[in-house]
């Protein structure tokens, strides 16, 4: 399988640099998710890997073979798009066979691959059905099957779950995770959905304004964002930011309205301009405890698994805290909160984590 190496890749449309001087390696035999908001350049980057766009400057290599201007059909890759690319008026089996007919394979080999792929995707029972009989999620599974049956070196996925209805989404996600764990190909997957990214990725390449701001495994990027943008983008809600008016520095120590301990920042103390704390890292108590601060619950809503998301006010500082359902507090209630020092991330004036 191939590593995908990008060297100073830029793609401009008029005066806009959709992808801006990216140098990056997508490791072989792993799942790399390009994640970011609309317009961050993730789809353009994938289209250049696919050969559907030519970079304005820079080079693309599969291992050490340059493919920058090699046409798509000679790149030995499979693609799955937002809308399933399948042939209507034919059976599922025929849809899976068609991409194999140009591969000079024996009938037995074609049959074996079709059945292997159908098994892997859990659609063996649908092989003789016409594609019109199937829901959108199953159709997308066929599109995935068509992409992997040829056994290409690289498989590219462009938001394959986005347009699938909510009931079929989960089954497709489960199926993709199973497929990814069994395949040894290099997989590049584009999405704006952080849940999809964190569920499926070996590593997430987070993009903003045409550049990759951080590439790391899901756990690391969630727990240790390298920028305020990463802290905000990952998580629901994004990380709480404590701005400079709520922070004080004395020597190497940092204090804040949010917590009562002093954070030891060493030589970086003077650079600390913003602190980041996740909603689940704020512990909410009914009584004063060590290192706790008084706060007032000003708003609350429900969330995933019945947890409450509380809007807390500490004077003019406002943050969000997440508490289990049985510990939901009342609006107007006074509470005490604490945060472990290890759960506080320090950022400099440019939004970079220190």
């Amino acid at each position, binding site marked *: 399988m191939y590593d995908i190496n990008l060297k100073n890749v830029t793609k401009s449309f008029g005066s806009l640099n959709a992808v801006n001087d990216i140098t990056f390696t997508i490791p072989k035999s792993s799942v790399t998710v390009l994640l970011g*908001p*609309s*317009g961050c350049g993730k789809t353009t980057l994938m289209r250049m890997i696919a050969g559907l766009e030519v970079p304005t400057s820079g080079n693309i290599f599969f291992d050490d073979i340059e493919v920058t201007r090699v046409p798509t059909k000679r790149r030995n890759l499979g693609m799955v798009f937002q809308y399933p690319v399948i042939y209507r008026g034919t059976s599922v089996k025929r849809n899976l066979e068609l991409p194999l007919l140009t591969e000079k394979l024996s009938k037995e080999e074609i049959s074996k691959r079709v059945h292997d792929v159908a098994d892997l995707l859990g659609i063996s029972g649908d092989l003789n059905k016409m594609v019109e009989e199937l829901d959108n999620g199953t159709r997308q599974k066929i599109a995935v099957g068509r992409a992997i049956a040829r056994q290409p070196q690289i498989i590219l996925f462009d938001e394959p779950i986005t347009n699938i*209805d*909510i009931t079929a989404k*989960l089954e497709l*996600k*489960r199926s993709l*995770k199973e497929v990814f*764990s069994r395949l040894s190909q290099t997989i590049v997957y584009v999405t*704006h*959905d*952080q*849940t999809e990214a*964190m*569920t499926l990725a070996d590593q997430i390449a987070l993009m903003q304004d045409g550049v990759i701001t951080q590439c790391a495994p*899901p*756990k690391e990027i*969630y727990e240790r964002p390298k920028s305020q943008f990463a802290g*905000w*983008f*990952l*998580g*629901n*809600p*994004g990380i709480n930011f404590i701005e400079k008016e709520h922070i004080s520095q004395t020597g190497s120590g940092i204090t804040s309205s949010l917590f009562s301990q002093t954070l030891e920042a060493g030589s970086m103390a003077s650079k600390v301009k913003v602190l980041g704390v*996740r*909603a*689940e890292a704020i512990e909410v108590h009914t009584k004063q405890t060590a290192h706790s601060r008084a706060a007032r619950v000003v*708003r609350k*809503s*429900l*969330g*995933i*698994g*019945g*947890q409450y*998301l509380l809007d807390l006010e500490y004077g003019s500082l406002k943050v969000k805290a*997440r508490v*289990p*359902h049985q510990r*939901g507090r009342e609006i107007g209630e006074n509470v005490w909160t604490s945060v472990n020092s290890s759960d506080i991330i320090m950022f400099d004036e440019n939004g970079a984590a220190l």
Partner: protein
Amino acid sequence: MSSSALEVKGLSKSYGDKSVLRDLSFTAALNDFSVICGKPGNGKSVLVRTIMGLEDVDAGQIIVRGQDVTDADSGSRDIGYIPQSFALYPHFSVRKNIEYPLTLIKASKEAKTEAVDRVSELLKIGDLLEKMPVQLSGGQKQRVAIARGLSKATDVYVLDDPLVGLDFKLRERLIEDLRLTQEKLKVAFLYITSDPLEALQLAKTVLILADGKIIQQGALADVYDAPSSLPSMTTLGFPEANVIPGKIQSSNFTSEIFEAVVDVTGGSTAAIAGIRPEGILIGKHPGTIAVSATLTLLENLGSEFAAYLDVKGTQFITVLSRTDIEGLKLIESKNLTISIKPEAITLFDFDSKKKIGTGVAHV
């Protein structure tokens, strides 16, 4: 004390043989954020069109500020409307787009300026006013569309699933904006959605739409904690509640998966147990019902994971924190024990789907 700004009584609407709204009734109060939550295909769009006066009703009344407007034309109902898609006029600036509903009613220049100032401050779009729609991002366009809907100064607004299709993070920001906007304006917001997470995040009052009717209305936490029927429980909540069919005999619920002592009204009957994800724990816990399961998918939601489990061919869902996952060393395909909290079980009649009782906590 809030008062009724919009009241719908006994609304029915059919298309040929297909009955879409069936004797539907509810009220929406001033200074309240009311959210109608229903699964796709339950008549949400038809309901919006009838409230807005874009479609006639077969039976029933629509009452706005105490006045029956059922037969009144759309314009005279004085309801602000924020549509599903942000169809901005491409040849108008943002300012002119926002002013447009006021231009239609021939408002004065001063009134338009005042309205634009008011809504652009609310939605933080002051710096976009002189731009053209083509220069805006998707999130900015939707914020402008919301501002346009709010430019008409009134006290009743209908928001027709305005965040559908937007990026996850844009939705998070706009949810915050909408909540703050309603709080500042102290008006009636009636928001319609099929997304349970949006309903949970936005609603003060929630109304469950199923089978062409509002089947339950109440304060968000009350409806979440005490659903009156199975569709109410499965419509509101994320991930969706677990559903297990079985039967009740002598204060016992039995199913292929578990048995539980229950407190129910009525005698022996076919029943359905509903259990929210947070009613299911991983591992063995005292006072719970232990069941063997296989973990089929861990969905990483950020601070927590949705764990999908297979129990004798039935799917169970629970929610676990990141620390749970790391502590328990959970991976897919792993066989494990799950524990059902008996007090988290709600029982529904199999046929009517109405609530008939609850599980009894182990002492």
